[in-house]
């Protein structure tokens, strides 16, 4: 997080390993306090990006998460090189985040409801979806189908991973096909859109939840704002492609503050409990 300092205080008063400035209201926030508040600004409610591990702590019941496919890593199908090689980029992202690719998947309970849970991490190469993300999400959906357990995916992604070329694009079709099988089988899928969810991830599984929730202020859109802005040759309106914009335009069921997210997901999963469970009407 880059430290801006509009108040003229010297940066050294607020060393970045201790303090973070809110990009929305400018308030200097003590990192420990920010973490205790689920990375939500205590002054204005701005939702900071959340890493995959913190997200799991927020949503899964304590000690309920069992990771699957934890060691799956990407190969380099195209031998892709830009200013770095693709394997080098992966290695750097693994070192930075401590996980192997941009999604963690597994089983868990959410308020005692067994689910298959997947959380993406934007810190890993912008949460981009390549073979590993696509494969892990597909296996997660297939497990949800086999167990008839609801699938919950928390998206955070800049889109498809360019370094895997058209194979990355095919992950859109792969993940959509997998969640479509859940749809046909009547197994619930809750999609949570967090900051940011854009490009190929939004244009595939993330838009197809039975319930689509978004975090306040999250950037959500198909095209990058830069591309869109260049297309029309003017600046975009304030709030464009934010969660609340998508709510107004009918693409999101609810914008849910982080503090209420777990409870809200649990409510919907409770209402959608699959056949044979007690809360349902006996249809």
């Amino acid at each position: 997080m880059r430290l801006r300092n509009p108040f003229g205080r010297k940066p050294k008063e607020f060393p970045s390993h201790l303090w973070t400035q809110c990009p929305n209201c400018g308030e200097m926030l003590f990192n420990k306090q920010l973490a205790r508040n689920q990375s939500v600004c205590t002054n204005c409610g701005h939702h900071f990006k959340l890493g995959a591990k913190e997200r799991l702590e927020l949503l899964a019941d304590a000690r309920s998460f069992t990771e699957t496919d934890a060691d799956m890593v990407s190969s380099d199908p195209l031998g892709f090189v830009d200013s770095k090689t693709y394997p080098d980029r992966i290695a750097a992202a693994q070192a930075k985040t401590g996980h192997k690719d941009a999604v963690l998947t597994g089983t868990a309970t959410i308020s005692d409801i067994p689910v298959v849970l997947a959380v993406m991490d934007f810190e890993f190469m912008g949460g981009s979806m390549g073979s590993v993300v696509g494969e892990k999400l597909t296996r997660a959906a297939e497990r949800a189908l086999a167990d008839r357990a609801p699938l919950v995916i928390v998206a955070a992604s800049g889109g498809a991973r360019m370094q895997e070329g058209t194979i990355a694009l095919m992950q859109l079709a792969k993940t959509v096909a997998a969640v479509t099988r859940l749809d046909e089988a009547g197994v619930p899928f809750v999609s949570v859109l967090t900051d940011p969810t854009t490009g190929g991830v939004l244009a595939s599984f993330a838009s197809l939840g039975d319930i689509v929730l978004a975090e306040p202020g999250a950037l959500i859109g198909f095209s990058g704002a830069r591309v869109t802005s260049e297309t029309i040759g003017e600046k975009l309106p304030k709030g464009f492609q934010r969660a609340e914009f998508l709510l107004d335009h009918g693409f999101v069921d609810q914008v849910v503050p982080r503090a209420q997210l777990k409870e809200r997901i649990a409510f919907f999963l409770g209402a959608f409990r699959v056949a044979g469970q007690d809360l349902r009407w006996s249809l």
Partner: protein
Amino acid sequence: MLERIAGSRRAGPEGNGHLPVDAGLITDTAAYAGERPTAWQAVQTARNIGRPHALDVISRVFDRFQELHGDRGFRDDPAIVAGIAELGGRPVVVVGQQKGASTEENIERNFGMPYPEGYRKAIRCYRLAEKFHLPLVTLVDTPGAYPGPEAEERGQAEAIASSIQVMSRLATPIVVVVLGEGGSGGALALGVGDVVLALENAIYSVISPEGSAAILWRSAAEAERAAQAMKLAGPDLLETGVVDALIKEPAGGAHTDHDATAAAIKTALVAQLERLVRVPVADLLSLRYERFRSFGTVVEPRAGEVAAPPRPWWRRVLGR
């Protein structure tokens, strides 16, 4: 399941007795020994304004085409054409992205960049195909879905996701032909089929070379390098399995002879559909799932194995 598709093989080398299953198709990059065009040549050929676009192909390949308009909710998008036509006397639904052959026509067709309502029109026509048991043919040719603000407002991402979803479970045979540019999710929205073919000089990519260059090299001038790196040209796509076979173009490229190009497309479509309509629909859907399920190259150290690359279409079909 494969056995049942392979049934066409048991009928002899001529497949179903009419056309060989690989009629007019290139299924092996060995055909390109030493003479593969560069990625950038492919990009330029695929974008040639004189290239046969969807309606050029439709008028030559199909008979009695009747266009269907509208998404039943907002607008009729001219960047997508859809309708019912006959192929060799039998009805099919055909849906394609439509570029223009001139600036005026490109403005009218929005340069082949659909709005969400275009994809919703496509979905409506897919469902018509399913309801009346008509095979579906889609023609992919777009720089990408339109990235303007109205498209965002009306749900470009939702429309693409839904189109992919509907195609992935549509209970009728689908053959996809990439005619020119297969630009990202906006192309894939028409690209989920039982067989995916491409014209020889077509391209198919996750992002435009210019877009990729701007992000990765921070310079659109590096588009040529990006095109090469992304392996978006026909022979590359055949190698990765993204397309099952290439349709041969006339010597100078498809733009030099629309009739000959269309004839090759027609031969390929008839051969594929004659085969696909014999496959039970439940098997088609399983095979379609497996086709897209298999994309991806991952390594699992604990399992000590690499997931196999997708088997080429040719082998999948004939059980080799």
